[in-house]
């Protein structure tokens, strides 16, 4: 029983990659197959969510290699959703897409591999395998960052692969130290690197070693999550990559890295108590919030704007993790909202880039007149990112600040609110300039690729549903996660 969903979840991206390699991208069947496999993996992820909600924690593999609990199910669903979106809306050979068949093939192969590595990272029980999968995500995504080779995209991809790999290597040092501490206590065991075993033996581990390991883990996975001061690769990579890829990277890759940090935080909290990890998380979270918020004030390109907003939201989530159970609930809800909103925004910005031809904010004006639907979605996404009412982020921002005050960190919350105000005022200023004002002469009006807007509208409605009334299954899932990570 338990093998089927795993196979569906993990194998479909592999098949999609193989299919894309074999079938010529010009065929209609190829893109339909690609999209279909993406949907299958999404259905598998949703199946996992259902299983977890029924109280199961499905496991698979020899030494309990794969294990899906509430946290993994949530992340798997997010990854599969964004991967399906990318498969559906990624570069294809439509009339107004300017990609060559070779590029499309390369994109499809490596984006499916990218999805596969993320799914493995999220479902692996073995901490070592999780590290390998996350390292593999860097490699898979780095290949397609320079899909169209320009000086800027080459530069962005080099920095991405270099900083990413160095960061991840440090995370491996942390993993090794964690395992070292376990071996000195219990001796070598085959399943030693399993997260469940580590968690069980955590109270016995030596505090100084675990603290050292957590520092390396935080710096390593923090680089992948885009936490300051290791965030520098993120704006370049996300603004130069094709928008489908940057949607996947900004939407879910950061979340997967954060997932790794949450896993290790649970172990370290069990070993050393929550005071040490929380202090580190708050420090890094506040730093990234500050740097991102201040960088948003003077921004000339809207894709970089979205990248910096990702850094800011990741910082907020990282901060939330350190504010007790309600904080973890808020940051996980924030994670779901951010994934939806950010991926929608990057797809919409891709369409804007195709139409206006320039990434500069100054050159895009009168968006609501030129492309009413995309403009509307772009506005809706931006307002969602600002945490304004009809959308879900208002609830998670409110819960986060409430958790902060409940935890007695009044001054910290004051700083957070001030930084959020600065960030949001500058985001709104840019949005205002793009949406309204006279439309530039000679721009073709009206929507192009009509049906492509439908999934984005679906994203927007999901965001509104999350905003008006958080559906019961999600609250149930998040409560389960709080039990795992929120002690």
């Amino acid at each position, binding site marked *: 029983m338990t093998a089927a969903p795993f196979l569906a979840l993990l194998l479909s991206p592999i098949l999609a990659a193989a299919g894309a390699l074999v079938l010529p991208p010009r065929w209609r069947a190829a893109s339909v197959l690609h999209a279909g496999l993406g949907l299958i993996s999404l259905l598998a992820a949703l199946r996992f969510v259902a299983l977890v909600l029924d109280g199961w924690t499905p496991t698979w593999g020899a030494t309990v*290699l794969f294990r899906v609990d509430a946290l993994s199910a949530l992340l798997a669903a997010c990854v599969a959703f964004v991967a399906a979106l990318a498969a559906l809306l990624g570069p294809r050979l439509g009339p107004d897409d300017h990609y060559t068949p070779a590029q499309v093939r390369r994109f499809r192969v490596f984006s499916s591999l990218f999805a596969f590595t993320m799914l493995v990272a999220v479902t692996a029980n*073995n901490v*070592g*395998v999780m*590290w*390998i999968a996350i*390292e*593999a995500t*860097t*490699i898979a995504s*780095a*290949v397609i960052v*320079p899909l169209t*080779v*320009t*000086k*800027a995209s*080459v*530069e*962005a*991809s*080099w*920095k991405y*692969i*270099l900083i990413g*790999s*160095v960061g991840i*290597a*440090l995370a*491996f*040092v942390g993993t*090794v*130290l964690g*395992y*070292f*501490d376990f*071996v*000195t206590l219990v001796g*070598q065991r*085959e399943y*030693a*690197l399993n997260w469940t075993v580590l968690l069980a033996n955590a109270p016995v581990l*030596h505090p*100084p*070693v675990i603290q*050292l390991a957590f520092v390396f883990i935080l710096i390593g996975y923090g680089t992948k999550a885009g936490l300051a001061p290791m965030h520098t690769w993120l*704006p*370049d990579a996300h*603004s*130069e990559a094709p928008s489908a890829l940057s949607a996947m990277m900004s939407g879910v890759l950061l979340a997967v890295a954060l997932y790794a940090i949450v896993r290790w935080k649970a172990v370290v909290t069990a070993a050393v108590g929550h005071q040490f990890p929380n202090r580190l998380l708050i420090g890094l979270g506040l730093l990234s919030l500050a740097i991102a918020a201040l*960088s948003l004030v*003077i*921004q*000339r390109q809207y894709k*970089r704007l979205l990248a910096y907003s990702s850094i800011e939201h990741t910082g907020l989530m990282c901060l939330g993790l350190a504010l007790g159970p309600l904080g973890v609930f808020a940051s996980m809800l924030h994670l779901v909202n951010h994934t939806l909103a950010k991926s929608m925004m990057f797809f919409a910005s891709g369409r804007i880039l195709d139409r206006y031809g320039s990434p500069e904010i100054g050159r895009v004006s009168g968006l609501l007149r030129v492309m009413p639907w995309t403009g509307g979605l772009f506005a809706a996404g931006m307002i969602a990112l600002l945490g304004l009412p009809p959308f879900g982020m208002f609830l998670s921002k409110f819960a986060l600040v409430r958790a902060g005050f409940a935890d007695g960190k009044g001054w910290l919350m004051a700083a957070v609110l001030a930084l959020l105000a600065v960030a949001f005022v500058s985001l709104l200023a840019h949005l205002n300039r793009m949406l309204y004002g006279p439309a530039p002469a000679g721009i073709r009006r009206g929507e192009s690729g009509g049906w492509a807007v439908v999934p984005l509208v679906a994203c927007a409605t999901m965001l509104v549903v999350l905003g008006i009334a958080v559906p019961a299954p999600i609250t149930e899932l998040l409560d389960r996660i709080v039990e795992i990570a929120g002690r």
Partner: protein
Amino acid sequence: MSPELVSQLSVGGSTLVLLAGLAMLWRRGVRAHIGAFTAQSVALAATTAMVGWFTGDWQLWAVAALLLLIKGVGIPILLARMARRFGTERELEPYVNTATSLLVGGLLVLLAYLVTAPLVSVSQLPTRTGMPLAMGLVFVSLFVIISRKKALTQVLGFLMLENAVALLAVLGTHGIPIIVEIGVFLDVALGFIVMQVFVYQIHETFESIDVEQLNRLRE
């Protein structure tokens, strides 16, 4: 093999590995760097074999062989081809001149000793004495990546970092589970290949592999 002998041998092996890393800081030419890396990989393979022999664990032998094959032979060949391709011009003036970089390398090793003090006190394995040196190599390789301008040298720095971690793993835990070991090798190999592709691309678009020119994306 008595535990004392093993600890001496492991210290000796890791010292060799660390010295190869410091050689990277000392020498300027790319060819010299590749030579240093090869020597380092061989020393690492030897240490792993020694530990494998001491614990009688066949997996470590397999790992040593894999190390020797990939990092000792495969990657240096590719590196040499790249060196020939991009001309062996010397690293003209790295950010930090040789004297200060060696000094910094020494300081980093001292920092490594400070940091790994709790590790050594906790572990009972004979090979624990080599761990500070492995951690030292981690910091030295990070410093190499920062201070060298050529993209090729930065790739070498990354590979040295991987070697350092592998050494730390062997000394600290007598070998991590085989699945993870294979996965790590796969990652390192794929990572190297992708970096190689990028170095070629950089050379194509920028006509040189000097990372200094990659400063177009600011703010």
